[in-house]
């Protein structure tokens, strides 16, 4: 049996499933000051509904780390960076304890200047004197050669409660992002670790001992042990949960868009050939770009409760939310109120909605229906324009080869999946505006929790080999070794796939077939010095992509009937 809980901003949803389908679902209000209590409450509800059950796996999606970062409740971190030449690393200063250590590597990972171990020692002592127990050690070009970072780790680790080294996070080159991500990883660790302990003990109280996984921003899961090492990966799992929920509910095989219409915002997700787009450079935290791999989603400031503002003969919807809609006892007419006036289904206090829209209508010198229609169409147009702009940015992404330039495939959505409260009411209008068939899945109310419950592990790793230097490294898996001049791209691909699968088997308690390790980028370039080829520069990126737990595929499929266009 699988348990999934999504702790969202307003609600905490929980679902319990077995291979026959959904057994129980529950929705409780989230107490932002006590997320653990919210989880408790949801678990209690599930138990009330389903009784004592044997849960094999419990997947949890939580806003804990996101909140800690956004609300600046972070613990102090001692950050050590070694930089070498380039942009002044002072520009990347983060937190209150940040020191640049002398030493540097070049873009091949070759040492330009030895790491100043005396300075590392003095800095460690100073940090410890300041009461710091949590650290981050980040070197420029560490994915090419982690040696400097590892020297710092060796110097600090015995005296640290927790430590993040930059190359554990990602094999992707981006020093400022690596610094910020490592810092946040360490800064949320104390909170996350305590939370993890509490969750484990409360599960014991409930007498269940499932394998506990945490949902990541890329829509995959990681076991709690891994999450304790990389808690920063649990940020922004909410939008990922809704994308995974949609994948659980509908068979998506084509290019498609997901619009999850919430109260204040609409989250847009993108599918290419049925796979959700995932990006390593999409998440920004408090204006700091990070290396956290995440579902490519964008949030548009327009939702069901967006207030309608009137200016001259125009009306605008959003981005402000001034409270609930009139239909729900609010004070300001919203998009939901407009929908309420023109839909067959009614919602809440329809008369209140009509009164509100009459006022808007008199401002626009038109009838209630026309005013409502205008508001709805305006909202749909705004959603389409912003969605299309996002799609254009994705399709116009830089490419680096002539082949990609000429052949790169554009994402052209053929279907629109709409979720969220006002989805059913909004669907026909969105369909007309986008000119696309629309699907509103059933069970969408608990889609996030379903997505969390049914998500499976994901992992990405990069391999870099320089056969001239006889050097090969897979930074995030901690692999480093000597390779011969004859090492090939083919071997590199095989090595990385095997490593990735082995790592998942050993650390994620998940059996994964090597066919599931997908090579997403590969290149092998001859390195010429003078007029001689001296070696090859080999790069491979491999992933286990997000997806639905195989043996549960289809258990909660809904009837994804397309609504007639227009």
């Amino acid at each position, binding site marked *: 049996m699988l348990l999934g809980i999504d702790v969202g901003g307003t609600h905490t949803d929980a679902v319990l499933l077995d291979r026959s389908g959904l057994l129980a679902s529950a929705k409780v209000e989230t107490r932002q000051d006590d997320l653990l209590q919210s989880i408790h409450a949801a678990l209690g509800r599930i138990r009330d509904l389903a009784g004592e059950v044997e849960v094999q796996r419990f997947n949890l999606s939580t806003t804990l780390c996101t909140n800690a970062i956004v609300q600046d409740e972070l613990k102090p971190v001692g950050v050590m960076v070694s930089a*070498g*030449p*380039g*942009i*002044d690393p002072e*520009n*990347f200063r983060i937190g209150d304890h940040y020191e640049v250590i002398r030493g*540097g590597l*070049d*873009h*091949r990972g070759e040492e*330009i200047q030895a790491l100043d171990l005396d300075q590392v020692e003095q800095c460690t002592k100073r940090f410890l004197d300041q009461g710091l127990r949590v650290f981050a050690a980040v070197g*420029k*070009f560490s994915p*090419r050669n982690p040696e400097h970072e590892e020297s710092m780790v060796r110097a600090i680790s015995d005296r640290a409660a927790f430590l993040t080294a930059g190359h554990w996070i990602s094999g*992707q*080159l*981006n*020093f*400022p*992002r690596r610094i*910020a991500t490592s810092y946040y990883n360490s800064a949320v660790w104390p909170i996350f670790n305590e939370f993890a302990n509490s969750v484990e003990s409360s599960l014991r109280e409930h007498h269940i001992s499932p394998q506990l996984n945490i949902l990541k921003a890329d829509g995959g899961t990681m076991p709690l042990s891994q999450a304790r090492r990389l808690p920063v990966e649990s940020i922004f799992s909410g939008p990922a949960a809704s994308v995974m929920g949609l994948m659980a509910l509908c068979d998506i095989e084509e290019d498609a868009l997901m619009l999850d219409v919430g109260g204040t915002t609409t989250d847009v997700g993108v599918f290419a050939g049925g796979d959700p787009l995932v990006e390593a*450079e999409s998440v920004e935290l408090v*204006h*700091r*770009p990070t290396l956290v791999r995440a579902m490519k989603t964008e949030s548009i400031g327009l939702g069901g409760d967006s207030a309608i503002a009137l200016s001259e003969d125009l009306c605008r919807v959003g981005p402000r939310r001034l409270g609930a809609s009139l239909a729900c006892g609010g004070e300001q007419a919203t998009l939901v109120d407009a929908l309420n006036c023109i839909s067959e289904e009614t919602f809440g206090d329809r008369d209140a909605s009509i009164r509100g829209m009459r006022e808007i209508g008199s401002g626009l010198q038109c009838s209630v229906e026309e005013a409502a229609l205008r508001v709805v169409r305006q909202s749909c147009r705004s959603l389409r324009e912003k969605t299309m702009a996002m799609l254009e940015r994705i399709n*116009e*992404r*830089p*490419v*680096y*080869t*002539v*082949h990609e*330039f*000429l052949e790169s495939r554009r994402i052209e959505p053929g279907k629109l999946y709409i979720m969220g409260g006002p989805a059913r009411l909004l669907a026909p209008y969105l369909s007309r505006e986008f000119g696309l068939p629309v699907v509103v899945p059933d069970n969408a109310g608990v889609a996030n929790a379903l997505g969390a419950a049914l998500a499976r592990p994901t992992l990405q790793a990069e391999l870099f080999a320089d056969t001239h230097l006889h050097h090969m490294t897979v930074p995030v898996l901690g692999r480093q070794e000597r390779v011969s001049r004859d090492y090939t791209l083919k071997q590199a691909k095989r090595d990385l796939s095997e490593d990735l699968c082995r790592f998942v088997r050993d650390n994620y308690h998940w059996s994964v077939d090597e066919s599931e390790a997908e090579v997403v980028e590969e*290149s092998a*370039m*001859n*390195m*010429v010095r*003078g*007029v*001689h*080829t001296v070696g090859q*520069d080999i790069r491979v990126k491999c992933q286990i992509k997000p997806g639905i737990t195989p043996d549960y595929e289809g258990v909660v499929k809904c009837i994804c009937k397309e609504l007639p266009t227009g």
Partner: protein
Amino acid sequence: MYMQGVANRLGVVFFPAFDWAISPTHPERQERLLYTMDQLKEEGVFDIPGIEEYRPDEAGLEDVRRVHFSFPDTESHLTPSHLIAAGGAIKAAKLLREGDADKAFALVRPPGHHAMKAVHGGRGFCNVNIEAIMVEYLREHYGVGRVAIVDTDCHHGDGTQDVYWHDPETLYISLHQDGRTLFPGSGFSSELGGPKALGKTINIPLPPRTSDEGFLHAVDEVVLPILEDFRPEIVINSAGQDNHFSDPLTDMNFSAQGYAALNQRLNPDIAVLEGGYSIHGALPYVNTGIILAMAGLDYAYVREPDFDPESLRQDKRTREYIHQICSQARQSYFHPPDSGISRNMEDGYFVRSKEIFYDTDFITERQREHLLDCDHCSGLLLMESSSSRLKNCLGIEIPRGACQRCQSAGQMYFDKAQQNESLRNMQLIDRPGGAVRRFRRE
């Protein structure tokens, strides 16, 4: 706060063409911008608020035909990579004119500044002139007039000089290693532009081992005062990076700090990558420096691992020689000499003959050029050309702003030439009419 704010919003059109090479071990090969990419990515350059990375456009054949007489035809000298490099430069120009950026850098390959007006093949790794294609695109689509191109590649940009030799609206200034010591062996102080554009071509041939000090002296004492006088609408840096002290093909002592300082002072609207083949020790740092300088950011820590300013210092003799070359160059712009300029006339046309060698494709070309001495415009251009591979070609250009007489004369020549059995390949570039006519005898 993460990074200081940029002074100029910078668009970087980055296209390293990782699957394109002239030949496997050629300097112009797949690997050339690999380490530059690594450095830029690791620096997080494209995350800096105000610096944006863009995908290039692909130039159309019409964009090439507007600039070059190509024989036997345009297509035979092009690979997709050439059109994408030219399209990258066009994209940079568009970013500026559409208001998406204040400055733009086309970090693309292959380069273009050795491609001349007539093209029979590849010269100095160049097949089409990507700056000229960009400049003429700007003129055709955005009505741009006066343009200055400052070529800081170590090799004389003989192609760009040739394309704009007769154009008084395009100022071409080249700083390069003295032609007596390096390919293509041209770019001497006496090369000052055609009779109708005298002083609009300025060459500053610098001696081997010129360092940051010498380059910056030339910028301060020659380039900037001339630009101030010329008042271009757009300044372009033809940003070759082979003046670097570690470049394998040249003998200069320029550094990443120097390149950045040069761009800070020159303050170009657009930079376009040209040569530069120290792909490991120079390009990653030079490109980072140029990008930061163009955006108006601090670049003080951008330096090569083996940078040693002491060992690169210019000696007194070099310094004095550079000062002398610079004062001569400055003089040539403000007071172009009357003497020493070839002004052979035939029936009211200025006549010029030249021989061109295509080192990449091993072709020799002979040209005879006639420019109508017109009082009302820059004059109709006729170019007869024969190469070791293709004889009897003719190019006719009716220039921008051509008078009525030159326009009809150009059309008439083209019609008449088609009757001439001995001419095999012809191209008419009609700029006022916005058209190109071509004729090929089988």
